[in-house]
């Protein structure tokens, strides 16, 4: 038994590590072909790794990526693709920013004010995701398509609402448009790190709590079991008494609610206003991180830190004359090769386990099983 566990862990780690190495090789090749020095890049990256500022920024990015990944992973567990985390997060961040920045909020006690902001964001995210759930359970519309559409609709909706005539104000002295700035009582203080002018987002704790809850709900509760069962076999779940429609609705709402949190660390921890500099595409980063981390709470944490580091280290590449986009290429290659690697490992595992059980029991499996 022990042997098997050890091998199982080894196999589990082999895939992502293999993918990383492969991606690094591909990038080295690209750099070599385009006439850049691989050594320069490695140097720049390792110098960056020693700068506290880069590390702080990496943790901050990872906080956001982790939340996005958890949002995605909730759906993934039951083979539900919430491609719409992106739209959900932006709409939620924008509306909750408008709420948090509203004048009447200035008199609300700080904790309550922050709580209201966060809850509002979760509600908006859940509602936007709920549209996709509704279309799926009533009309069988694939959530992949509907969430893609809802992402784009959210983009237009946000740009419509982010207008001085509606929810936005023009920042004095610049032509930047954003929601009204959240005054100090609505902000979440960060953690100072020596040697770095930027602080670690206070809401990094939120990510930790979300990660813990995610782990607990998925592996320790009935709901988590039913989520997994539905993902493994919808028909078996139905026969076991799971209402798949209810599961779709609940997990989509949960996913959307967590997606709503994605914008919170930046909103309450550094920018205090929602403006167009909130990065699009976080939902897709979330998908990448969830894939790399195999929907596992710790795996996703490692993956989000890696992603955060790569993104922030990229800044120092431009200085050394290498286009920073080499990092984007690396990330893309990692995602593609890691899913391939996981698939290969999965196939190998099923075969190996069947063989192991077969030889442990000294008998042959009935034949239809193998060929079916």
């Amino acid at each position: 038994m022990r042997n098997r566990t050890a091998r199982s862990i080894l196999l589990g780690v082999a895939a992502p590590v293999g993918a990383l190495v492969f991606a690094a090789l591909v990038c080295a090749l690209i750099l070599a072909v385009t006439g850049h020095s691989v050594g320069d890049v490695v140097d720049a990256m390792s110098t960056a790794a020693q700068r506290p500022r880069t590390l702080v920024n990496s943790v901050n990015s990872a906080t956001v990526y982790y939340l996005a990944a958890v949002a995605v992973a909730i759906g993934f567990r039951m083979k539900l693709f919430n491609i719409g985390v992106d739209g959900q997060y932006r709409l939620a961040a924008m509306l909750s920013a408008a709420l948090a920045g509203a004048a009447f909020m200035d008199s609300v006690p700080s904790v309550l004010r922050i709580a209201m902001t966060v809850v509002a964001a979760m509600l908006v995210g859940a509602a936007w995701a709920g549209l996709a759930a509704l279309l799926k359970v009533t009309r069988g519309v694939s959530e992949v398509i509907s969430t893609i559409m809802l992402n784009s609709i959210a983009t237009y909706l946000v740009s419509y609402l982010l207008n001085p005539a509606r929810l936005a104000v023009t920042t004095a002295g610049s032509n930047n448009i954003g929601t009204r700035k959240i005054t100090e009582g609505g902000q979440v203080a960060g953690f100072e790190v020596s040697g770095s002018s930027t602080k670690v987002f206070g809401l990094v704790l939120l990510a930790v709590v979300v990660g813990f809850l995610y782990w607990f709900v998925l592996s320790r509760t009935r709901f988590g079991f039913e989520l997994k069962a539905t993902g493994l076999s919808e028909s078996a779940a139905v026969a076991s008494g799971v209402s798949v429609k209810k599961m779709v609705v609940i997990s989509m709402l949960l996913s959307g609610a967590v997606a709503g949190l994605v914008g919170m660390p930046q909103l309450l921890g550094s920018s205090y206003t929602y403006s167009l500099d909130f990065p699009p595409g976080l939902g897709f980063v979330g998908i990448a991180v969830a894939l790399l981390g195999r929907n596992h709470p710790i795996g996703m944490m490692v993956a989000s830190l890696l992603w955060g580091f790569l993104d922030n280290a990229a800044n120092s590449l431009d200085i050394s004359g290498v286009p920073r986009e080499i990092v984007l290429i690396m990330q893309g290659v990692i995602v593609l090769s890691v899913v391939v690697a996981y698939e290969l490992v999965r196939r190998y595992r099923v075969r190996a386990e069947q063989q192991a059980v077969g030889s442990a029991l000294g008998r042959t499996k009935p034949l239809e099983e193998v060929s079916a």
Partner: protein
Amino acid sequence: MSTEPPAGAAPAVHLTAITKRFPGVVANSDVNISVRAGTVHALVGENGAGKSTLMKILYGMQQPDEGTIAVNGKPVSFGSPADAIRAGIGMVHQHFMLADNLTVLENVVLGSEPRKGVGLDFAAAHARIKEISDSYGLGVDPDRLVDDLGVGERQRVEILKVLYRGARTLILDEPTAVLVPQEVDELFGNLRDLKAEGLTILFISHKLDEVLSVADDITVMRRGTTVASVSPEDVTARKLAELMVGSALPVPELRESTVTDEAVLSVEGLTLVGADGRTVLNDISFTIHAGEVLGIAGVEGNGQAELVETLMGIRSPTSGTITLSGKDITNESTRHRREAGVGYIPEDRHRQGVLLEATLWENRILGHQTRKPNVRGPLLDRRGAKADTERIVVEYDVRTPGIDVNAAALSGGNQQKLIVGREMSGAPILLIASHPTRGVDVGAQAAIWEHIRRARADHLAVLLISADLDELIGMSDTLSVILRGRLVADHDPATVTPEQLGSAMTGAGRED
């Protein structure tokens, strides 16, 4: 053993010493079959005897590790179905290989299309299909969409597909499994026509009466190898069955009656109209008492699966009521039914019974995720579930190195024993068992029967659906026959013979 080709014409198909291994398993070993040209040759064997693997080898979908194939006396080697087709072998699959959204014409010509330039020559295809359809009396309209066709018509399209490719040898894999009796008769009529035209037919089945009525020669397979070649005049169905299982059949038998007068499940006027408007269940009524096993006999596809799913709450009936221990559960969810004490052994364990990629103890929880010992409130009780899984493994003799392996690693029989053990836990009052011993080896079969028997003595009510008539007769206190969604006859299992049941199942025994 080996069969010598008969003198005169070379056999249409001659398989010699075929062996095929899969990781950890030998699927076929030393298989020898000789099929005379112009005959209907039946290949019989239990589920899992290796028939399907052998047919895949003959049709080029898999390659044998050892052995040779000869077609019309010439040795051949098939790398893909395309090679087999070229050699004049065609296959009619049990699960139809048809694309619903394509027309009959498109389905038929796919892969060997007549061409005009680079385009498809629709006119030529049309004419050719019409010609084949007419000359064998298949009555197929090339322009219809397959989605609109009934089961019998689809099978004729499958046969037409094969003939269109110029096949001289047709493999039919359990062709009657999905047919209603008239369709079976029509099919057999078609087969006789084909034989009359000099075609050779290899017919795979485990329905022995059908085999005896249509085949010229019979080869029996058991545990991956061919064990006998017989001619239908020389054997009885019972003898064939014994050849298939390798020993005198274990006959399931109930001892004294334990039937009480306490009604557990009452079904009244249950009717289900399918999505296509067809009435799948028609006014079904019955009652099962505590300690009673009600067996339902019927040719597959006559509404059994739908009946079971309706009783489980997976489908909602169009009308009628279902009462469990005096409580109307017609509109209750599957979960409520299970909590009220309904155990369920599904027909297709991979689809509804287990999570292949989850551990045994997680599979123990499946279907019982609201009950002890698996949960405490909304939380999983992992320790409780694991301990109880250990109990099932011991009590039900599930052969596994541990409860942390995935269900996929277990053999079908052991998966089934796990399911039976699970469904018997938590003191169910009603067990719905659909083909509980299908695809299970003889030892496990006897064990499963014993468990059902013991539970029945403990006042369990059982609805037993099976294709195995001996099992039905031996295990049931009451027997009903289902035909086209209706319960058409009741029989006393003490006096009924398989032959009588068989004719009731095909509608032959009906007075009207």
